[in-house]
């Protein structure tokens, strides 16, 4: 058993280091870094490059990686990106870090090459020394992992408790505004925190390399498990994050000790452990305080007073609000008509990609519903798409149902699961919802999607298109018709009483409840609808390939989808259509027409990642912004009074979005203080 504990503690140490890095950046700067795994991978890959490929010594490689590259990355990304996120909503913060998690592995591939590295050295010299402790073999790599955690905990405690820098950090955690007024420079402190966080990412990345190899996907999964420790720590407690991280590692190892090896049950339980920790910690917290919200206890009164529009209480809202007062349908109709013409123009190869893009666009509409309209930051829409795809393949192929009925049933099953997830997360703050839905997606992927019934040795289950849409051209129009139906449903939703109520719940649950609205019903409604749309979209996606393959619905891929959609605009139906198209077609063009391989074939992914990062500056998304520009141009050409930019695109002038711009001028006879107060409500 001791041997299992020794191994478990290595994973635990990595979880603990990662959780520490995640917690300190969250409490100090308000950013939960979804790119932590990607940063860890990048620094570990750099370490491998100079240590193994360039044959530098361990100490020199580690010093350059952890004391030069990591601090540089911390300062660089703080200056270029993170400092602009201070007043952004959680949605933007999450998506920007997801964009970084897309960009970093691509950069690593461009710089260091795309060789798969299954075995990489850690900080111990090769061959790795092995010691015997109480009859149990312990490698020097493992000892170094333990020493790092112990050292970091002690060092962290001493710095935070007894140094001026530690005092400044603790002060900023309590109240950034008061820290600023006391003469400390919050920017410098934040930059310092990012430096430390990057160093922790690098350290955990290098320590993880001998255990999991050098694969960006594995790093992201490893850190996704560490999020469980962060949730258990309620995003804020370093000691709890470290303790739970260690405990999770040991628990994962002990489960393998007690359960039979090579059993499917064991294989399923191990990945479920972080989810169990998440569930238990949330239940305990909800029982203790009734609700788990990342905003609780954050900042002082002064911080709340000066945070525009209640700051991240707006959380997953898509930032620029004002409903859709001046927006007309000219632009969307023109774009949709253009898409309707494309199947007539495309040759067969391009048409086959086009039908997949349309199916993807339908799935994207589920993000538009749940995040754009419902204001809920769900990271498992791709899982619902997978549920819809796998279920419809089962109904259609295994049980002989008509395929369209099977797809609808797939949507219904996804909707039922969506409603349950909505119910389970009803008392959670938006960031917790994001983390829980991410963990749920990963769990479904490991426990359900991997079942042989669905996976079929990686081949998936075949599914045939309906007879009337068996050709790509006909199927493209079927997809466009379904897209149009859902888009109209969403437009009707947002402009109806239901939409008003949904909007109300999104902005103030207290006010909604006290005016007689049921917050639970509204959230259930949008959860179920979004999951249904995702399920149907997933079915269409499978039909486009004529195969329902679970691997196509990997949770981490869903993060990229979200980043792409938000880049184009999460509140615009037509943005979903354009995003689906742009995600697939340029990549196919580069590979097929330009015949370019890596790294050029990675350019679309890189651009989407950069686009998502660009949300720090332009949170509204590309399509909606251009649509408004188009609308103003039409007004101008038609001689009508142009829609003023401030009205048509209020978000640009929202101080939440552009801290560097002044807020709109208040009405006469209103003092700036009053405006701040109303914004702060």
């Amino acid at each position, binding site marked *: 058993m001791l041997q299992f504990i020794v191994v478990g503690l290595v994973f635990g140490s990595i979880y603990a280091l990662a959780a520490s890095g995640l917690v300190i950046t969250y409490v100090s700067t308000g950013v939960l870094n979804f790119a932590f795994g990607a940063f860890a991978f990048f620094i570990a890959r750099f370490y491998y490059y100079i240590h193994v490929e360039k044959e530098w010594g361990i100490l020199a490689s580690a010093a350059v990686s952890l004391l030069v590259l990591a601090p540089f990355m911390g300062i660089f990304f703080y200056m270029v990106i993170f400092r602009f996120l201070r007043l952004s909503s959680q949605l933007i913060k999450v998506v920007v870090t997801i964009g970084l998690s897309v960009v970093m592995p691509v950069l690593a591939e461009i710089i260091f090459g795309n060789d798969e590295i299954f075995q990489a050295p850690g900080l111990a010299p090769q061959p790795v020394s092995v010691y015997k402790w109480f009859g149990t073999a312990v490698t020097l790599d493992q000892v170094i992992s333990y020493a790092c955690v112990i050292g970091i905990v002690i060092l962290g405690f001493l710095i935070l408790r007894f140094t001026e820098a530690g005092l400044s950090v603790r002060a900023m955690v309590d109240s950034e505004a008061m820290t600023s007024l006391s003469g400390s420079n919050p920017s410098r402190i934040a930059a310092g925190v990012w430096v430390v966080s990057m160093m922790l990412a690098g350290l955990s990345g290098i320590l993880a390399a001998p255990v999991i190899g050098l694969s960006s996907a594995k790093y992201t999964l490893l850190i996704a498990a560490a999020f469980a420790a962060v949730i258990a720590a309620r995003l804020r407690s370093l000691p709890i994050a470290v303790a739970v991280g260690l405990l999770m590692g040991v628990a994962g190892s002990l489960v393998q000790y007690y359960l039979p090896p090579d059993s499917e049950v064991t294989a399923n339980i191990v990945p479920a452990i972080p989810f169990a920790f998440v569930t238990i910690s949330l239940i305990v917290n909800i029982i203790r305080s009734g609700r788990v919200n990342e905003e609780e206890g954050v900042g002082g009164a002064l911080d709340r007073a000066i945070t525009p*529009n209640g700051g991240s209480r707006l959380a997953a809202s898509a930032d620029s609000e004002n409903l859709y007062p001046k927006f007309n349908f000219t632009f969307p109709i023109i774009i949709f008509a253009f898409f309707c013409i494309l199947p007539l123009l495309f040759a067969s190869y391009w048409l086959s990609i086009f039908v997949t893009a349309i199916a993807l666009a339908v799935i994207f509409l589920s993000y538009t519903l749940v995040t754009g309209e419902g204001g809920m930051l769900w990271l498992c829409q791709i899982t619902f798409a997978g549920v819809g795809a796998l279920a419809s393949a089962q109904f259609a192929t295994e049980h002989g149902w008509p395929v369209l009925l099977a797809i609808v049933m797939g949507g219904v099953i996804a909707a039922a699961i969506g409603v349950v997830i909505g119910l389970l997360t009803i008392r959670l703050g938006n960031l917790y919802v994001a983390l829980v839905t991410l963990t749920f997606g990963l769990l479904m992927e490991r426990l359900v999607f991997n079942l042989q019934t669905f996976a079929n040795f990686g081949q998936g289950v075949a599914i045939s298109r309906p007879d009337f849409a068996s050709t790509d051209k006909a199927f493209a129009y079927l997809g466009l018709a379904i897209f149009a139906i859902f888009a109209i449903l969403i437009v009707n939703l947002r*402009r109806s009483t239901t939409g008003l109520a949904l909007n109300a719940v999104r902005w103030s649950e207290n006010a909604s409840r006290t005016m007689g609205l049921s917050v639970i019903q509204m959230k259930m409604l949008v959860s179920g609808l979004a999951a249904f749309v995702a399920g149907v979209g997933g079915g269409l996606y499978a039909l486009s390939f004529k195969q329902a393959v679970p691997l196509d619905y990997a949770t981490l891929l869903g993060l990229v989808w979200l980043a792409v959609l938000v880049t184009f605009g999460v509140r615009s139906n037509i943005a979903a259509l354009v995003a689906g198209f742009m995600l697939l077609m340029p990549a196919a063009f580069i590979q097929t027409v330009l015949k370019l391989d890596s790294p050029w074939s990675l350019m679309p992914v890189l651009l989407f990642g950069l686009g998502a990062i660009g949300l720090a500056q332009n949170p509204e998304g590309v399509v909606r912004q251009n649509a408004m520009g188009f609308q103003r141009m039409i007004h101008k050409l038609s001689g009508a009074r142009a829609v003023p930019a401030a009205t048509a695109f*209020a978000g640009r002038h929202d101080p939440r979005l552009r801290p560097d711009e002044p807020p709109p001028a208040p009405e006469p006879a209103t003092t700036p203080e009053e405006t701040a107060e109303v914004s702060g409500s």
Partner: protein
Amino acid sequence: MSTVEASQPSEVATDTPVLEARNITVRFGGLVALSDVSLSVPSASIVGLVGPNGAGKTTLFGVVSGLLRPNQGDVFLAGKKVTGAAPAKRARLGLARTFQQLELFMGLTVREHVVLGYRVRAQRRRLWSDLFTAGALHPESSDEKERVDHLVKLLGLESVANTAASALPLGTARRVEVARALATGPSIVLLDEPSSGLDGHETAQLGAALRTVVEEEHVSLLLVEHDVAMVLGLSSEVAVLDFGVRIAYGTPDEIRNDPAVRAAYLGDDEAVEGVQTDEKA
């Protein structure tokens, strides 16, 4: 502060109070926020609730509206016990409220706030049916239009009716909260510092609007205000809280002359006497 005349309820209050809080105690850990506080609001009347900062006024509002559960005591709406009822159920029983820290729906326009308030009460079915019946295309009913227009005009919101709530100055935003509360067709409205941030003219306008709804629509109001002059001017009865304890209850005149109240407001005699000042102008 501005002077406002005392309301003269047009209807004789019925025996059963429209709202009654009985022996409410709320503790937050070791802190006793409210201790055995009782209060009742007769039909078609305005009852004021005043007290220094931290007296427990907003906590009492939280208990009455259902956002907080009391450790002891009960809440009754029109004689019906609602202590354990959810806020939405209390709203359906005729309770509405505004918030000291504004809780507007930033994505909606002023008019949409009022429309939603109206529909939640009068056309509740549309919350669901609109989704499946192209509700976005349904025109406003004449009743809805009349009521919404009336409230928008009553609160002086015509010029900003189609403005998003996020673009409103504080004084206007407070009036939107009042309009939204009234749109739900309540029998009682809890107003949490409605004049905070309003200038003298706006305060007077709000006072007149409140009197109108009490007189014409027989709505009762429970009014929390820092503007003591406004409370004493508007209310038929006033309760005074201090450190979670009700230290006085009576007519405005009785409150003005109550030594305990004067002690609680030590150094703020002007406020207690309701002397008009121009500090808000």
